[in-house]
């Protein structure tokens, strides 16, 4: 629209007023800001690209995007996980157009340049001598990412050769919490199939900010369905929300929010008893205790990965069932976001339980999910609401942080800076403070 486009770091930094707890609405609609984000964030941070269990065998691949750059995630024939830009080094034709597959080697459809699953150039149409040494084929393999790292079966990649190791981003504190979801049994979690994919008509950051710890929206936006479908009882749910809801600042823009049932009892609502025994093996006492009281767990790993776990009930005669979904918020433009949504389950889970938990997730957190449906319309309206010169001139308000950010729940048993409840907006705003650092090139 009419305001001058944001083109540099200083201008971008000025869009977040750290002291005041305010941010410009241009963060949600400005094409210039979006372009900067692609450059400053998505070519430089660690980006989630998939799960090890999506490519179990050598030659298995799936196609993904990092920002708007398409990549191939493949297990090479030596068993190594690889990530390559999904374009031919010759003339840029896309190598893999399918969503997933199984290959011996990658063959470009245009002129047949062929690459190993390790990305190395193998053959062109002619034998190499034909090219008289003019084409440095040894340097013309598939373009690889700079680094790949995994945590608990989750695969991350970055284009940035100077990126700190994944453990510096997903550090001890973060892993202490994430282990409750991804490493709670000896076998770990496995994926329940390819991701659902659908498109939100709003900025990609709205989702991850919400999943940092948007307490107030839950009873408001999801009130009706919560009463119908969540947990043991609506009362218990509301008690959890209003009661113990630690919302933890994990650093680096990431956060996790837990809704805990009141009291000391470990009800393990929605968990399978056989699995609870395994949690005991893999988690420490504090983690185990938190999991036993957990109604919902919601988290975001900066910049665009989130998770949610919650017990829901769609069969009036059966107890609630927990699901765990992993969600990637893929930027398409300043006002369009593609959501990728995976379901995870413990490898050791009984067969029927796997089906149960998948259905629980599909019915609540998915394009057709009863919870996501509510969020979708509220979020989508934002783009239409604030695209004009007046709308863009106003603020996004996180001022609640000024009342709470200096009063943390210091004796919460877990690591990290813990907010006293899920209504402080602190974790949400921390995400933007981190965002500001990347845009301002402080990272």
């Amino acid at each position, binding site marked *: 629209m009419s305001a001058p486009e944001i083109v540099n770091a200083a201008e971008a930094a000025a869009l977040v007023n750290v002291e005041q707890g305010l941010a410009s609405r241009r963060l949600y609609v400005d094409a210039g800001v979006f372009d900067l984000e692609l450059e400053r964030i998505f070519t430089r941070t660690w980006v989630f690209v998939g799960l090890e269990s999506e490519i179990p065998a050598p030659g298995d691949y799936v196609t993904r995007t990092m920002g708007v750059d398409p990549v191939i995630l493949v297990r090479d024939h030596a068993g190594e996980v690889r990530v390559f830009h999904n374009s031919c080094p010759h003339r840029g034709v896309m190598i893999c157009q399918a969503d997933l597959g*199984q290959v011996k080697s990658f063959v470009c459809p245009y002129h047949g340049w062929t690459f190993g699953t390790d990305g190395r150039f193998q053959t062109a149409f002619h034998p190499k001598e034909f090219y008289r040494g003019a084409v440095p084929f040894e340097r013309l393999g598939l373009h690889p990412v700079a680094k790949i790292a995994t945590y608990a079966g989750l695969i991350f990649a970055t284009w940035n050769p100077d990126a700190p190791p994944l453990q510096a981003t997903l550090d001890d504190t973060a892993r202490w919490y994430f282990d409750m979801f991804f490493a709670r049994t000896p076998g770990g979690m496995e994926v*329940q199939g390819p991701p659902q*994919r659908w498109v939100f008509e709003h900025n990609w950051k709205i989702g991850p900010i919400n999943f940092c710890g948007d307490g107030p929206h839950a009873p408001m936006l999801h009130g009706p369905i919560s009463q119908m*479908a969540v947990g043991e009882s609506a009362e218990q749910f509301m008690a959890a929300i209003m009661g113990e809801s630690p919302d933890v600042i994990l650093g680096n823009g990431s956060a996790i929010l837990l809704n805990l049932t009141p009291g000391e009892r470990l009800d393990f609502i929605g968990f399978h008893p056989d699995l609870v025994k395994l949690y005991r093996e893999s988690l420490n006492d504090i983690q185990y205790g938190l999991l036993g009281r957990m109604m919902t767990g919601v988290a975001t790993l900066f910049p665009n990965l989130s998770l949610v776990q919650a017990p829901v009930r769609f069969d009036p005669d059966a107890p609630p069932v927990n699901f765990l979904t992993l969600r990637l918020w893929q930027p398409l433009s300043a006002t369009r976001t593609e959501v990728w949504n995976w379901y995870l389950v413990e490898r050791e889970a009984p067969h029927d339980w796997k089906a149960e938990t998948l259905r629980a997730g599909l019915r609540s957190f998915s394009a057709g999910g009863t919870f996501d449906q509510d969020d979708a319309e509220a979020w989508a309206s934002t783009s239409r609401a604030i695209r004009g010169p007046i709308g863009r001139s106003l603020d996004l308000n996180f001022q609640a942080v000024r009342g709470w950010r200096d009063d943390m729940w210091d004796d919460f048993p877990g690591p990290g800076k813990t907010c006293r409840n899920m209504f402080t907006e602190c974790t949400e705003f921390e995400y933007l403070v981190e965002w500001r650092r990347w845009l301002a090139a402080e990272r």
Partner: protein
Amino acid sequence: MSPAAGANAEAPRGIGRPVDDSTYRAVCEFLYSEAELLASRDYRRWLELLAPDLSYRIPLQQFDKRGEERRYGDDPAWFDETRDSLCIRVEQLLHPQSNADRVPSFLRYLVTNILARETPDGLAVSSQVLLIRMRANNPQPFLLSGARQDLLRSSAAGLQLARREVRLDMPLIDSPNLAFFL
């Protein structure tokens, strides 16, 4: 399910014999009346058309390269429902405070290419469906199309839907939610 894989294997053509004319007309009336209920969001009356043991599925689709096909995981879907779970969904959509459909969108269901066969389990009915949805937040109509494979059974109250599978044509849903039924 890849689009290359034969929907035909399960298509009614070939299995069972074509229904007689009056049954065919009854099947069409059933599907058209159902479409009216869905379009007007008269969901509680729609529920009455569903058999108690209904299986209602909308599987996820993938783009495959011929010769490289592969599947993993547990047969994911957009919808995998029972009559009970659809009741809860209906209660949510009709709840006065629920946000998903608070400003109801306009829905239109074109049901075409209806084929019906007698089978021991009931009437195996295939049809094509095109949904057109207009949401307040987007002036562009959203189109969703697919092939339905239904099983209809006679009951005291007339025909009932005992099984439905909708194979969508869209692996990626270009819309923020699926706050409707197909």
